[in-house]
């Protein structure tokens, strides 16, 4: 009996220790986890409802313009022409070479073609060129933000107004060109769902520090207006692979040799 008592006593001690080491910390976490799950489930339901009413999916536009099965070279050349004309007028670029296109190379599901060109440019012109290249292939505000920037906005939405997810979803799926032409009204539309200074401050930081600022600047300039006028938006997907800068004759000027990859699906 004493032996059984000792076993039971040990079991008691173990049970009490489990409460102290496991149950108490878990119980402290559970309300927050349950709240988070409920918020996320509501957000998913609202998101699904909104997604059903969305007209024209992003996927269709990606397949037609951004990653087509057969690249539209005329469209690509027209984009480069607009870029060159605009920067030449601003006196930021000179001696733009012909653009050469290499043979296609299969890379997993995608096909790439190397696009090379040379030009002389002021460093402001090179910065604009790189911003235009970074813009290529991006469609929406959400695409222009990094995963980290989107995560921060989502966390603030969860904390402040979980129902505001629909407004955030609408904002992130806004076309970049449309946003750039009237950024204030799109931003105000989102801010109507979130009033706290914390959200406003996070949101302003995102607008100021992300690529959205460059995207707005480019698409709101002469280049953006021409792109809109000639219906060249969105751009095909280009990624700069290699860029070589040689110090030029005048201060701030460089001889630039750039190689990009043009992506397509087949």
């Amino acid at each position: 009996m004493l032996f059984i008592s000792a076993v039971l006593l040990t079991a008691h001690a173990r049970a009490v220790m489990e409460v102290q080491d496991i149950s108490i910390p878990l119980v402290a976490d559970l309300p927050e986890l349950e709240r988070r799950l409920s918020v996320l489930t509501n957000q998913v339901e609202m998101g699904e409802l909104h997604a059903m009413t969305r007209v024209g999916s992003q996927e269709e536009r990606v397949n037609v313009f951004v990653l087509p099965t057969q690249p539209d070279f005329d469209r690509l050349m027209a984009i480069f022409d607009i870029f060159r004309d605009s920067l030449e007028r601003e006196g930021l670029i000179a001696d733009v070479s012909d653009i050469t296109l290499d043979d296609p190379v299969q890379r997993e599901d995608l096909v790439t073609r190397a696009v090379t060109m040379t030009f002389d440019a002021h460093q402001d012109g090179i910065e604009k060129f790189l911003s235009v290249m970074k813009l290529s292939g991006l469609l929406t505000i959400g695409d222009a933000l990094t995963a980290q920037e989107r995560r921060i906005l989502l966390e603030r939405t969860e904390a402040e107004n979980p129902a505001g997810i629909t407004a955030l979803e609408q904002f992130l799926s806004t076309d970049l060109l449309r946003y750039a032409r009237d950024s204030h009204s799109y931003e105000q539309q989102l801010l109507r769902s979130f009033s706290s200074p914390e959200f406003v401050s996070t949101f302003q930081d995102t607008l100021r520090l992300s690529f959205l600022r460059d995207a707005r600047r480019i698409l709101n300039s002469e280049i953006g207006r021409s792109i809109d006028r000639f219906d060249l938006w969105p751009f095909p997907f280009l990624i700069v692979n290699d860029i070589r800068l040689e110090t030029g004759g005048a201060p701030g000027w460089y001889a630039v040799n750039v190689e990009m990859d043009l992506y397509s699906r087949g």
Partner: protein
Amino acid sequence: MSNSTKTNKRPSHSFGAIAQRGSMPLFIFSAVLLGTLTFSWYSLLPELTTVEVGGELRDAKSLKSYHASLTAQILVAQEQRNALILPMEGTAFRALTEKKHMQFPLFTLRTEIERVATTVRVEESKRAVYLSSMQYSLEFATVDFSGSVRNVGPRSMTVLAQFVEELRSLNFVDELKSPRFTREQKEDGSFYSPFHIQISLQ
């Protein structure tokens, strides 16, 4: 007083006798202890160690599995929500977009390298490090740049070594291939050290 000797006669306490006398209290103690512990195990302990969560009474083990299941459900819901917020998750398009965002900005690189080049000098002498070309391979995350160290007389190699050390300390530098340290002389007799440096980015 009588001169008699007193002897203390103590009864002999053999182990058997002690066990015989103590067995009953020990039995009673053990029985009471066991009874109390059994009662506690089935009645008191569950009351004290279980909590009602989600409409159910849960002990430590059950709480652990409930916690794990909640965490897993949160991850699934989070993925579903993110997929709704940002369509085309997991596609080639999204992978390419992320690749774009991962690229290190060229002008941040150039500005930082230029900053180091202008700060490395000998006392109050003129600028010593000049960059002539820079090649940035975004695919391989490497930067190659060339230039020369001049205006510092025969100390050009020392200044070049200082420049290399300063570059190594930049936070985006993962690996730096040291240049070939040479000192050459121009027609006018001045010394200079040409260099070619390759940096792998973090």
